[in-house]
Structure formats: structure tokens, C-alpha cells
């Protein structure tokens, strides 16, 4: 057995060892921890020609059976020992935590938290589907038609497969595609370059739990291959920066997941009690290493901006990297140090425009970008901006970063722009009404609720059921 695991591509579940492989490195030591087979776009196109067969195999199961398989997969993912590649390696849950941490830079505690999220999603597929379908009896999906609340309903699949072009920054995003299996839709996954671990382990967990291997495509590939995944699959999820997602956003074939620009707004009625909310705001900014699209990246207040920025900076500024095994670790390392360079330079560049101050600088006692035990980290940064028009006011970076901006309550909704999550700390009924009426907010938390809180049965970014199925009118003689 080779000492370095090899992750093959999975072509409708079958391992395929390519002649073209890339190494995945530990971000701190540079040690090669796995080799990953890379396939060309033609391989994906060829496999997609017979994807109907994979869907036919999933359709042999009922949704209820697939929900049960998903739940078993959840337990296996969280606790099981599963095959890792095609050279005889096995991976325990601890191995997964260690390896993913080593290559992604996420400390163990965050990997474990992400595992819990995925586990929850897999073991609660019935609840999730109930939320996504608004209580549709699942035998309607099995039979193609039935009744809901006394009305005839019929649904058909919009695609033979769900394409996924995954990121490397946060393993929990995999939870987005998990309901697809229970919805009898094969997945065609292009994993993130530095994060093949989670989709591979999830696939192995599903197969071990009884799902047909043919339902899973795992294709590490290049830019052209990613493009084919998006082009060929009838429906696809993709993740990327604002520029990447902009070209796909208006096409109903795609569900795009870009920056969230999530925010915390405090109303006039609550602003004088701002100190009560500092812990909540700080955790919304910094949880999960500040890497999620649901992390708050702007705090918008009618007054006390300077004091709030200072309090957040005092709390977050001293946060420094710790060893990944340390339970108290709150920062993630960068698998790609150039990304850290880019972010650091972008913030510095923004600070050159008058009207912004890095309030954390005085509490940090050093530079934003630091090297610790061989890894590259960005320390938390709170920037006080004097207007929402400042270039740093509505930015999102892959680290604990937020701006604090004073905006009169009456102008907040016209300034904030599209926001994945808004936590609005207010009891003002008129402001609440305006917030409920805003088309810019995907998920609205009314009251002191962390932006990180998500509800599995209430999708905050696209409804997977409505993405994969469409209702048709039906009449039977």
C-alpha cells in the first residue's frame, strides 16, 4: 500500500486513476498528504451521456428509503471509518478532522463544528424536505403525482443530475447538496482544489449506507472541466466571488452562491443599549473563522459607531492564531497564502481612501497578516467607515472582517444593497415592516440573533426542491 493516499475520480461511482495528478499539501508544513487524479472535460462529457442510468437507479428507491440512507450516511460521516481513495487507505473521523484541518487551515474545532452541521443536515432530511416542499407528501415524488391539501399535484424533475462546482473554504457548504440524493438526483461534483475531503467522505458514507455508487460523480478537474459540469448538468450549484457568480446569476439553471454581504442593523430604538449586543455582533463576525457568507461583514447603526467599532476591536483585535488542535482556536490559516496577501493588500488599499480607520490595529499589537507555526493567517479587522459609500464599507473577506458605519435608520434600507442575512436589532414596528418588505434581504433575523444561525427547513439561499422539481398541472381520466 502506498503511504500517500490517492483520491481517484469517481465516474458514476467507479474509481478512475488519471495519469494527471495534483498533490494536496499541508498548509503549514508543505508535506504532501494526498494525490488527487485530475480528469479532462471530455471524461465528464462522456459520463454524462449515460447519466440517465444513474438517475434510474436512484428512482428504484422511495424518498423515504433515501431519507433513511441519508441518515445512516450522516452517522457514518460523523463517526465512521470509511475508504479513503483506491489504495487501501481508511479514514476515521479523527483522521478526517486532522487532514482537512491540515490542508484547509481550519482549526479542528471548526472542522468538527462543520461536521456537526453536515451530520444534522443528513439526519434531518425529512424535516428539511418538509420545509422545502411546504409539507408535500413524499410519495408524490415517488409516483410523480398525488394530492396535497386536497389539491391534485404533480411534479417532474428538472434535471437528470445536479452539478456542483465546490469551493475550498468551508466544508459545511456541502450540506446544500445533500437533499438531492433523497430527491433522486445524481450529483456531479467538481471538488474544491484544496478540499476534496468532504465530498469524497460524504460519497463514501452514502455508498456505505446503501446508496447506489452510480449516483455519485467526483471529478477533480480544471477550469474547462468546471465549465462542462455547469454546462451539461440541467441544474448546477456554483460558488465563487462576485465576478464569477455575476455571469450565472440570472440563469434559472444555476443556483449561485457568492459573497453574502450579511449585516447587522441596529434600530434607533435599541441603539443606546448597544453594549448588550457586542458579544453577538463579534461572534457573527468571527465565528467559523469569518469564512462564511453568513458571517456579518458590516454593522450599520444610527449612532455610537465609533464606540461600537472600538468595543468590537477591543474584543476581536487581540485574537491571534493558535495551534489547530487548540480548542480555543478562532482563526483559520490560508491554504493559499497568496489569497491572504491579496486580502491584506486590498484592505490596506481601501484604507488609503480618507474616511476609514482600522480600529483593530491598536489592539492587535502587530500586523494583520501573520505567520504562525508555518501557516499564514489574517487577524480580525474592524474598520470604522464614515459613510456607506467608502470602498471598505460593504466588503466581504475570507477572514473576520467587518465595517462599522453610521447611517440614519431611515436610509439604511436604501444603502445596504443585497444582503444574504440581515440581523435587525429593533422592536420598532414601522422599521420591522420596512425590513419585511425589503427585496434585498434573503434571510431576516428580527432581534438579537446571530447571523450565523440558519434554519434547515427554511432555505436562505435557494430552495433545492424547487430547483430540482417543477410542478405541472395534471388531470387523470
Amino acid at each position, binding site marked *: 500500500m502506498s503511504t500517500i493516499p490517492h483520491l481517484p475520480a469517481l465516474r458514476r461511482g467507479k474509481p478512475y486513476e*488519471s*495519469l*494527471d495528478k495534483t498533490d494536496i499539501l499541508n498548509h503549514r508544513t508543505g508535506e504532501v498528504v494526498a494525490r488527487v487524479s485530475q480528469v*479532462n472535460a*471530455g*471524461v465528464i462529457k*462522456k459520463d454524462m451521456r449515460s447519466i440517465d442510468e444513474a438517475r434510474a437507479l436512484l428512482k428504484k428507491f422511495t424518498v423515504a428509503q433515501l431519507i433513511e440512507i441519508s441518515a445512516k450516511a450522516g452517522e457514518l460521516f460523523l463517526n465512521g471509518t470509511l475508504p479513503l481513495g483506491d489504495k487501501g487507505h481508511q479514514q476515521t473521523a479523527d483522521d478526517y478532522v486532522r487532514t482537512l484541518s491540515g490542508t484547509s487551515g481550519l482549526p479542528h474545532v471548526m472542522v468538527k463544528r462543520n461536521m456537526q452541521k453536515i451530520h444534522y443536515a443528513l439526519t434531518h432530511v425529512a424535516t428539511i424536505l418538509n420545509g422545502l416542499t411546504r409539507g408535500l407528501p413524499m410519495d408524490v415524488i415517488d409516483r410523480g403525482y398525488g394530492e396535497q391539501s386536497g389539491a391534485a399535484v404533480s411534479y417532474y424533475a428538472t434535471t437528470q443530475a445536479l452539478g456542483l462546482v465546490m469551493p475550498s473554504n468551508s466544508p459545511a457548504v456541502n450540506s446544500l447538496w445533500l437533499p438531492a440524493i433523497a430527491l433522486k438526483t445524481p450529483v456531479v461534483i467538481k471538488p474544491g482544489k484544496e478540499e476534496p475531503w468532504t465530498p469524497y467522505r460524504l460519497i463514501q458514507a452514502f455508498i456505505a449506507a446503501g446508496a447506489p455508487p452510480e449516483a455519485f460523480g467526483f471529478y477533480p478537474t480544471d477550469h474547462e472541466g468546471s465549465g462542462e459540469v455547469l454546462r451539461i448538468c440541467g441544474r448546477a450549484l456554483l460558488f465563487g466571488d462576485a465576478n464569477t457568480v455575476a455571469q450565472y446569476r440570472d440563469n434559472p439553471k444555476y443556483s449561485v452562491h457568492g459573497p453574502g454581504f450579511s449585516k447587522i442593523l441596529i434600530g434607533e430604538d435599541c441603539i443606546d443599549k448597544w453594549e448588550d449586543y457586542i458579544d453577538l455582533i463579534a461572534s457573527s463576525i468571527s465565528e467559523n473563522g469569518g469564512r462564511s457568507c453568513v458571517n456579518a461583514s458590516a454593522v450599520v447603526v444610527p449612532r455610537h459607531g465609533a464606540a461600537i467599532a472600538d468595543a468590537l476591536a477591543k474584543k476581536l483585535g487581540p485574537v491571534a492564531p493558535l495551534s489547530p488542535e487548540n480548542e480555543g482556536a478562532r482563526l483559520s490559516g490560508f491554504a493559499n497564502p497568496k489569497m491572504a496577501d491579496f486580502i491584506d493588500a486590498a484592505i490596506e488599499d481601501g484604507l488609503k481612501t480618507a474616511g476609514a480607520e482600522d480600529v483593530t490595529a491598536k489592539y492587535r499589537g502587530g500586523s494583520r497578516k501573520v505567520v504562525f507555526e508555518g501557516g499564514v493567517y489574517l487577524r480580525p479587522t474592524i474598520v470604522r467607515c464614515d459613510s456607506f459609500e467608502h470602498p471598505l464599507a460593504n466588503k466581504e473577506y475570507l477572514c473576520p472582517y467587518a465595517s462599522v458605519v453610521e447611517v440614519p435608520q431611515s436610509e439604511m434600507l436604501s444603502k445596504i444593497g443585497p444582503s444574504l442575512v440581515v440581523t435587525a436589532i429593533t422592536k420598532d414596528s414601522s422599521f420591522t415592516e420596512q425590513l419585511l418588505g425589503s427585496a434585498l434581504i434573503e434571510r431576516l433575523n428580527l432581534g438579537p440573533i446571530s447571523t450565523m444561525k440558519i434554519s434547515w427547513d427554511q432555505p436562505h439561499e435557494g430552495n433545492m426542491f424547487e430547483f430540482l422539481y417543477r410542478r405541472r398541472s395534471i388531470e387523470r381520466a
Partner: protein
Amino acid sequence: MSIPSPEVAKTQLEEHLREIIHWHFSPETGSPFWLEWARKAGWDPRSEVKCVDDLKKFPHFQDEWLRDLQPEVWAPKAFHGRPFNIFETGGTTGMPKQRIGWEDYKTDYSEFSEKLSDEHFPRNHYWLMMGPTGPRRLRLAIEHLANVRGSACYFIDLDPRWVKRLISNKQFDQAKAYMEHVVDQAATILKHRKVSGLFTTPKLLEALAERVDIWDAGIRGVFCGGTTMLPQYVRFIVEEVLENRIGFYPTYGNTLMGLAASVPLTPGDQYSISYYAPQPRAILRVVDPKDTEKTVEYDTWGRVELTTLTKEFFMPRFLERDEALRRKPRAQYAWDGVAEVRPFGAMEKNIVEGVY
């Protein structure tokens, strides 16, 4: 075909080299360009170039000469009065490089024909070329190759200059539409005509195979060239596009060299294709980009340097825009080969190859 030993091949090459040098630098037979060059350089290659190593006395051939000068400066005096073909390469923007010729392409492709099996390219049948025709030597060469084998050839043009321009301008939809237009025409020919041999580029082959079952359409041999073919891609073509039952003949070449055939793949090759120049008419060296007098070690990367040695055209030490692995001599060829050819600097930057 008998295979010379390395010593015999070297002797043959050096005899040929002396003959060609004498031809191009003698006032009775030589070309205006080289006669003038020697006069300005102040040395006579006829007395100073006796072996391959002496070629280093020439500087690298400048491709601007093929762009800037009128074609007749390259015509050897011995060919005066005989109209020539003008072949082009490059030209995506600005003036293309031009090479003139008479019979060289026929010589190269008649020799190449001996490397094709009748099983894959049946004699007295039909071929299809789907690729760059226009002003390229390849157009006439493929037709000659088919004719030498008693066959006729259908042609579908692809203008790589246009494709490269579309891709450089990020007009990907148009590039795709153009590719579909080309493939449509090939599919139509295959539907209505009997064809057994196909020349195309790898990307067009892949696209055609998505549209048509090329085995069922009658194709038994595919002769491919024109772009990077790394091992995994070759494997994909052989195993999944040609399904291990259609003969695959990758080649490396261009208007300035002719064509370097590949040796048949063995399991030990791991789909790494090695090409061998049509020596003595051309010499390929893989040189250290920082010291081009030196070749790199075997199985390491270097820049491809081409020397063309025919009575029609002499081109010493031209640095191609390609890099490759240097390979040892192997069966059929008693000289060095080049493998896994890709655009020079491919590791450092993205290079537009398009469908070509």
C-alpha cells in the same frame, strides 16, 4: 524499411548536412538570402560546417526573416524558373511566416505513408481532413498522402487565426458556434460518404465523436496533430474517443519542419507520445532555454530547436515556441525524439491554443 544504427544515421546526417550547406551557399545553386547572409557574416559555411555540431556557428534563425522578406529571396538558384508554393504559418495578427516549397511536402508525406497501416488507412479509399487548410502546407500534404495511398480526400476548413482571435477576445460563444459549424460539416460528410481515414485536431476529434459514432461511420484510422497532447489526454482519446479500436497516429510538425511521426505507444510509455524528426531533412533538439547551445538531459524539459535541411529550404537552429521532454532514440529511429510537446512557457502562463 531498414533502420540504420545510430552511427550510420549520424554519418548519413552529416553527409546530407554538407551537401545541403554546399547547395545553399554556392553561387550556382544557392538562394539570394543565404548567399547575402554569408557575405555579410564574413565566413563560408561550406568550408566551416562539416558536422552537426558546427551548426552552432550559425545564430538562431529569426522568424522575422520569413515575415519581412519577399518569398523569392529563399528560392535556390537551381530552382529558378519553377513556380513555387507559398505556405504560411502563424498570422493570427499581422503578417504570417511564409515558407516556399516545391516537392518537400511530397517527400515528407510519402515517407510518412510507410508508417501507416493498411488496416487503419485502407488503400484506394476515402479520407476526410477537418482542420486548418487555407494557406497551409498541411492542406496539400494530406491530399498527397491520401493520393499516395490511392485514396481521395474530402476537406473541411477550420481557420485557426479566427478561432484564436475569438478566444483572445473572450468571445467563447462564437468560438463554440464556429467549432460546431466545422463539426456539422464533417458529420454531414460522414453521413453521406464512405470515409475510412481522418485527419483532424484532438479537440475537433473529441467534438466529432460526441456527434457521431465514428467507428460506425467507417473511420478506422485517425491522424492527429497541431496541438498539445499530454498523456492523460492521449489516453482519453485512445481509450474513450477511439475506444481502443481505431488506429491513432499523433504527429508533431509545422510548415517549417514537415512532420515528425510518433512511435507506436507501448504500455511502458504511459501514453507519453514521443516524436522523431524526419532526419536527415530536419533535426530536432531539446535545448536548455538559458543556454541554447546545450541540449538538456534525457527525459527533462527544454525548448524545441528545429533545423531544416533540404535543397528547397535551409533553416538553422530555429527556436520553436514549444517546449518538450528530450527522449532517447528508439526502434525505427536512431536519433533523439521529443515528447509531450506543449507551448513554451506553458507552466507559467495561459496560452491560447483554441481548437487547434
